[in-house]
C-alpha cells in the first residue's frame, strides 16, 4: 500500500501532463524506514522520448548523494505512459532495480494530459514480479515525523 499526500500526487500528475507526449519521471524521497514519500524531485527524462525514460547518469549521482546526506531513500519512483495504460511495461520490469520503492505509473493517454482524470497506480517490482498495490491519498500525513522541506515541481 502506498500512502501519499494529495499535494504530491497532484504535482506528479501535473509533471506528467506538462511533459506529455514525452514520458515524465522523478522520485519522491523520504526518510529511510519511514515508507513516507515527502520530498518530490522531478527529474529530466534524458531520453526525451514518448516511449522511454531514463535519468541522466550525472543527475542520478547527485540525486542519490543528496538523499544519502539527508538519510533518505527513493520511496516512490514515478514515470508516465503517454499512449498506454498505467501498468509497468516489460522494459519497466526488466530494468527495475529498487526492490523497496513504490513504482508509480501515471497515464496521460486519451486526452488525459489536458483534462479529466489521470490514471495513477502503484506497484512493487521485485525480481521481475509486478504486484499492484492500493494507493491511499491523504491531505496530510500524521505528524509523528517532521516534514522535510519539499522541493516544488
Amino acid at each position, binding site marked *: 500500500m502506498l500512502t501519499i499526500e494529495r499535494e504530491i500526487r497532484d504535482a506528479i500528475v501535473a509533471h506528467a501532463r506538462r511533459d506529455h507526449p514525452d514520458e515524465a*519521471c522523478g*522520485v519522491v524521497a523520504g526518510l529511510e524506514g519511514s515508507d513516507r514519500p515527502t520530498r518530490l524531485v522531478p*527529474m529530466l527524462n534524458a*531520453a526525451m522520448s514518448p*516511449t*522511454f*525514460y*531514463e*535519468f541522466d*547518469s*550525472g543527475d*542520478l*549521482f547527485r540525486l*542519490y548523494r543528496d538523499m544519502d546526506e539527508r538519510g533518505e*531513500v*527513493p520511496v516512490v*519512483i514515478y*514515470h508516465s505512459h503517454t499512449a498506454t495504460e498505467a501498468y*509497468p*511495461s*516489460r*522494459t*519497466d520490469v526488466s*530494468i*527495475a*532495480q*529498487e*526492490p*523497496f520503492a513504490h513504482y508509480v505509473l501515471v497515464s496521460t493517454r486519451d486526452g488525459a494530459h489536458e483534462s479529466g482524470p489521470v490514471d495513477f497506480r502503484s506497484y512493487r517490482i521485485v525480481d521481475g514480479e509486478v504486484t499492484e498495490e492500493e494507493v491511499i491519498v491523504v491531505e496530510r500525513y500524521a505528524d509523528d515525523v517532521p516534514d522535510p522541506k519539499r522541493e516544488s515541481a
Partner: protein
Amino acid sequence: MAIEVRIPTILRTYTGGERAVESSGSSVAELIDSLESAHPGIKDRLVEDGADGPAVRRFVNIYVDDEDIRFTGALATELSESSTVVILPAVAGG
C-alpha cells in the same frame, strides 16, 4: 590499498547488507575482480560480455570520484588510494 565502494540496495545481498565495502585495484576492472573474490556473484551483476569484451552493464552506473566511468575510460578507468567508487542502478524504463 583500500578503496571504499558504495553498494546500492539491490546488491547488498552480496555484501551481507553492508552499504559500503573496502576493496582494492589499480583499475575498475581489477576492483571488480577483488569485489568478486570477497562477494561471489556480484561481478555478473555489474559486467557483461560486450562485442569488444567485458563492459559495464547497460543499466548499471559506476562512478569514480563522482564521474560516470563511461566518460573516463570505462573498466580501464584508473584508481588511486584516495578514489571513491559508487555503484548505482540506472533508473529507467519504457
